[in-house]
């Protein structure tokens, strides 16, 4: 809660340092300064900053924020856009996990083999290549050359025809997934490598377990702890990846909304969106922490004290 409040303060005041205002963008060339000032009054842009900040928080909490530019309600905009971005980022994340976990493990356990070397090299390339370029490449191969998949635009009927909607998301999701997998493969690989070097793995192997059985029985759970942290970060990243990728594919999702709002200085929309994304990332982080504690009970120590205190209170109450 406190991080969210701090984030709101930073988001609000940092945005105010940017040059440009929505009124001028809205009115365009040919209008007078009086008209500009009048519109600023109507939009509340002439109020003191603190008043504007309070107004924004109030609008955010009560859900009554509207776009300065189009007058559309923030809630409606987000729900409609999220119906593209959320499935897109989940698809990308799922593909990335399905690809990178096995590849990461294989490239660690078989690191001396050709396959391991190949996966390792491919992931290096994947990390270095810009995400928009991957998108352009996929479009030119799978849409323009082969004609298998649409090059962009989300069906106008939205999810009424789920098949069409999914088809529209395949290439963008792959684009994000390729970039994400490249990063994740490297993390999974190094976590598994760390585990392979531990004493208990050596002990297990000396007791006659094969490397893979030892890994399955004892290693993976430990290797998973750092990997879960990365998965959390990457889940957030998949949302941010959507910002770039939606533009390349002409998908009207949250990313494009953010981009167009920034260009037109539609401050309420930018602020709300960034705050919302911050909240989502904070929630993901909290979930990651819980998951890590479940995987490795040793991590509970610092938080354990707090928990014990709460428990004892309730015991007193009972």
């Amino acid at each position: 809660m406190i991080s969210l409040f701090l984030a709101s303060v930073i988001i609000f005041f940092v945005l105010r340092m940017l040059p440009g205002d929505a009124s001028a963008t809205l009115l365009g060339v040919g209008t007078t300064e009086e008209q500009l000032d009048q519109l600023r009054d109507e939009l509340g842009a002439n109020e003191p900053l603190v008043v504007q900040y309070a107004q924004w928080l109030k609008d955010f909490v009560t859900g009554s924020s509207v776009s300065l530019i189009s007058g559309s309600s923030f809630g409606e905009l987000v729900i409609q856009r999220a119906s593209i971005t959320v499935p897109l980022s989940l698809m990308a994340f799922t593909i990335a996990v399905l690809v990178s976990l096995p590849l990461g493990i294989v490239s660690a356990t078989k690191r001396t083999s050709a396959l391991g070397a190949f996966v390792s090299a491919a992931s290096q390339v994947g990390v270095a290549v810009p995400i928009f370029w991957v998108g352009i490449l996929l479009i030119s191969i799978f849409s323009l050359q082969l004609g298998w998949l649409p090059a962009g635009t989300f069906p106008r009927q939205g999810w009424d025809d789920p098949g069409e909607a999914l088809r529209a998301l395949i290439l963008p999701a792959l684009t994000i997934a390729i970039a994400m997998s490249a990063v994740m493969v490297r993390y999974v690989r190094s976590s598994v490598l760390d585990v392979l070097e531990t004493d208990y793995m050596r002990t297990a192997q000396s007791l006659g377990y094969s490397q893979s059985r030892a890994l399955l029985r004892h290693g993976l759970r430990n290797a998973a702890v750092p990997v879960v942290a990365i998965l959390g970060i990457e889940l957030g990243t998949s949302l941010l990846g959507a910002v770039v990728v939606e533009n390349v594919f002409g998908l009207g999702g949250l990313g494009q909304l953010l981009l167009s709002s920034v260009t037109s200085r539609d401050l309420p929309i930018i602020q709300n969106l960034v705050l919302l994304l911050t909240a989502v990332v904070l929630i993901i982080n909290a979930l990651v922490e819980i998951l890590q504690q479940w995987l490795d009970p040793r991590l509970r120590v610092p938080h354990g004290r707090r928990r014990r205190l709460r428990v004892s209170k309730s015991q007193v109450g009972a």
Partner: protein
Amino acid sequence: MSAALVLGACSNASNDDASPNEETSTGQIADEVIVGSTNEPTTLERNVGGSSGISEALTRNVFEGLTSINDEGKVENTLAETIEVSEDGLTYTFTLQRDVLFHDGTPLTSADVAWSVNEAIGPNSLSARASDLRVIQEIETPDDRTVVMHLDHASASLPFFLASVTIVKDGDKENNSENGTGPYVLDEWVQGDHLTMVLNDDYWGEPAKTPVITFQFFTDETALNNALQTGAVDLVIHQESPDQLATFESNPDFVVTEGDSIKKWVWTFNNKEEPFTDERVRQALYKAIDREALLTAVWGEYGEVIGSMPPVSEPWFDASFADIHAYDPEEAKALLEEAGASGLTTDITYVAGGTEEIIVQQLRANLADIGVTLNLVPVDDSAWYEDVYTNKDYETTLMNHNNPRDVLWYANPDFYWQYDNAQVQELAVQADSAASEEEQVELIHSLSDIIAHEAPSAWLFMAPQIRIADASVSGFSASKNAEPFYVGNLVKEG
């Protein structure tokens, strides 16, 4: 390269009277045409600023004015059946078309016209044309079909300016009113994605041809072109990426058209800022630019070099203006020396983007040849409006201007280029109250001639109007001489 011209005439002229449903059942034309554009309306409020997105998609299609500007740039009557002007030019009497219905079924009356015009000229109007229209002193409505406007001075441009005032229902206080009289009814606008309009079955005039028209919006040119290539859109109305033209030109599945545009690339000097207060400096910088080479670098064989603000399609255009400050680096150097500004260093503030980058690089190279250093200051749209347009805090700037008859902005000393010339201002006033059209043309030509010599800005070139359509699509004008994109004749076969 000669471009094909695709105009209204199409194969289904014989069954124009058939209802759209019958037409589609014969399999002749498609139910829907999808128009791809990067110019999305920012709002559906009709009278806000220049709002070129809303006028492009909705004016003439969903909303109509008393007059409109047709695809050739000529003013014609629309909701006004006749316009009578009094001897002294101070009274305009409009007789409205019969049997016009709003989309909600109520009939159009003179009261609706009076209300809509008053809204556009009222003290709270945010319309960019408000000051041009404030020549209207009073509006009378003697009967339901007659509107009388009394002016405070004669204004030959009134019918032109009235084309930007779209008529909605009297007292319709909704800013996002969609209750117009046009051949199409607005169906839905999903911001950031698309806008759909459907046929108005009770349209008073010639009915439109395709049941559903969708404008599909893009922020990225490449995404738009890909969508055309894969059939997700049928027509791209502004091709802004010259480098992607070749793909379409060589493909028989597409038709590339070139027409007149009103899009001028203008490099403007801050005329109140040293050293640009000295006309010799402005002229020198203008002469240093090889505009032919610049145009070729950006558009290949398309487009046209100009030497003053008016575009080719306006009656006061003069091709010889382009030679006044023709490319001459030696003379440019001499002029700079004379003005004591040799070795000048200055900034150019511009909105970062594809075409802009090519232009500023060329400008910088040309200026380096005469010993002038140009610092590039890329900004985004919003920052440009604040720094350059509103605060006039800049040295030189690059902008493309896309409004009809905007040469008259040089008569406004408060406009962002801060050019203050009493003679130009006087000519603009005279032109507005000119007795005849010939006289008006003559006066604006003189005005354009003065600015062409004094060079408050350097007019670089006119961008071509290039549209690319799927070969099955016809019924659109190649030229863009006004803001609206009329879709009433648009059809897609098959």
